[in-house]
């Protein structure tokens, strides 16, 4: 709203538009610098995962904070995924698939390959007392 009022007030003057343009460029540059320096560090600090005997929990996000818990026996299958950038740094993403409708796959990005693989190992081990439900087994098939 403020921008609109400001824009209306100065629309007669071409010089003012130039100033506005410069300010906008300044903001964009500042945001890029922030995104390249401070953001990754904060984002790294805000992200964490935890493996529990009966489930897996992920926390991430600075502005939009997410905390998600998936019970172990609801995990249908797990994938380890690597993009070209991740491969360059020896990283991987762990993708957990559930039978859920809205969030059928939950991704944990930027973990080391051995960690991702050991997580996959551990998560795919089912508790032997748990009988897979029909719906889950079907979706795997």
């Amino acid at each position: 709203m403020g921008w609109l009022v400001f824009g209306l007030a100065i629309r007669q003057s071409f010089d003012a538009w130039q100033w506005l343009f410069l300010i906008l460029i300044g903001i964009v540059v500042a945001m890029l610098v922030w995104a390249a320096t401070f953001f990754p560090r904060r984002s790294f600090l805000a992200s964490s995962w935890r493996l529990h005997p009966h489930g897996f929990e992920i926390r991430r996000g600075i502005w939009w904070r997410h905390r998600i818990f998936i019970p172990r026996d609801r995990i249908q299958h797990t994938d380890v995924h690597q993009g070209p950038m991740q491969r360059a740094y020896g990283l991987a993403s762990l993708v957990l698939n559930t039978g859920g409708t809205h969030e059928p796959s939950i991704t944990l990005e930027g973990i080391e390959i051995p960690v991702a693989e050991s997580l996959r190992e551990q998560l795919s081990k089912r508790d032997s007392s748990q009988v897979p439900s029909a719906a889950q087994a079907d979706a795997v098939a």
Partner: protein
Amino acid sequence: MIASTANSQSSRRLHPVSLLFEFASILRANVIPTIAAIVGTSRGGWVGIVVGAVVFGISAAVAIIRYVTFRYRISNGELIVDSGLINRVHRTVPLSRIQNIDLSQNLFHRILGVGEVRVETASGKEPEAVMRVIAIKEYSQLRNELLSFRNSGLDELREENVEQMPVSGSQTKAPELILALPTRLVLLAGFLSNRGEVIAGLAIGFLWQQRFSDKWFASEGWDKESVRESIREGAQGSASSQAIRWVRGLVEYLGTHTSSPSAILLVLIGLLIVFAVLRTFSATWYLLKFYGYRLERIGDSVHVRCGLLTKVSATIPLGRIQLISIQQKWLIRKFGLSSIRIETAGGEKESDDAASSIGRKWFVPIVDHSDVPRLLAILDPRLDRLDERIEWQPQAAGTKSRMFRSILVITTGVSLTLCYWSIVTGLLFGAAFVVLGWMYVGKKAKSLRYARTEWGLVYRSGTWERKTSITFFDKLQSVALNQSPFDQGWKMATLKVDTAASGPADHRIEIKYLDVERANSELRAIIQAVLPRMAGTQEKLVAEVA
């Protein structure tokens, strides 16, 4: 008798009239060559006849091949379906995996005593087996076998939660009537719902694209010539053109007599007539779809049956229900009525397949609201006397202010923009919007409700269309807590749970405006409830999770 047939039996074929329906459906799929053939024949052209003959020949051949190669049988707890000649398909569906077995019968099916049967599992978008068509007797037999299998001890793979159902299966073979809808109630529901408007909207959109866009408005006047032209060009018959002409005349009349009271009266009467026609449409749709509605319980399944011309029936195992949603549009609520939708795993979200939509989206199309608790208790005994026992959680303190602030931001924006043209209009608009907004916010905050019980979650939302959805801990796939930047500012959080429900209830359990402390404790409590019960270790485990 049933137990013995469930173990093994000889292959069964489709009903011989399948040939006819298969042939018709293939012809329908190739509608353009068929029309070419008919036109060609009437004009005596040989190309059309050849095309027609080829299409007919291929259709007939395909129909015969499908009929001859299709076989099904139940053996050792599995439904085995064989089909195809070149692509031979041998499909084995364990009976324990079958979610639904649906029947639909149109008028021709009913005359011939046959029906189209769909067998669905949780797995996919399309049914595991479609039997087009088998005799009704065969369908009943198939269903009985399935149900008796489910009720017998053979069902080893049954889901944990099925055990929580009363083990009454073996005794109650006979269907027990849960709900039958009188025609009067079905008609009332039709009049109260806006099905007609939806259909009319589609029709108007279609007509608009067809011809109104340039022909109607570009012409200077609405003279006889343009009517004739439109009749010649349009796909519509003369009746609709007459109606258009009449409406057009009316519009012109009103255009020249805008301020006279008779014009206003005419408009009002016109609107009333349109409204009445649309509502009649809607009532007709309801009558066609839900005439003779009956909900029955057979063992651990419920069975829905309804329809005037096309009769549809669906069987839903109770243990497979992921979500139950009680929905009340404003007018429906004012009349003390409700509808109930259920969600099971699998199937498409917006399935137009009649049987599956009856079994889920239109599970109970209309019911007296006071009867809902009884139905819920039948669907799941844990829901018995839910109304009395439920304890709604309080909302975060700032909920109303937060909702109002977002309205205030929009109002300020719009009214400032209006002030640019006229200050009075802008201010008046702003003032009106603020008052209405405050009232709306009050209603909205009041409508949002959330409760956690020992077996699951209950979430209610919606001011205009109130939806109360119930899900169970044993159906949850994941639990999440989200905080947007706004949430952080208001010290609130959103709690989301995900189930395998396919979504016809159109109500996601996503509880907004929770106090952040409370949201965290709710998350802990839900995790505790979802985790497998292990005496002793549970407390420690939850402490660790938290």
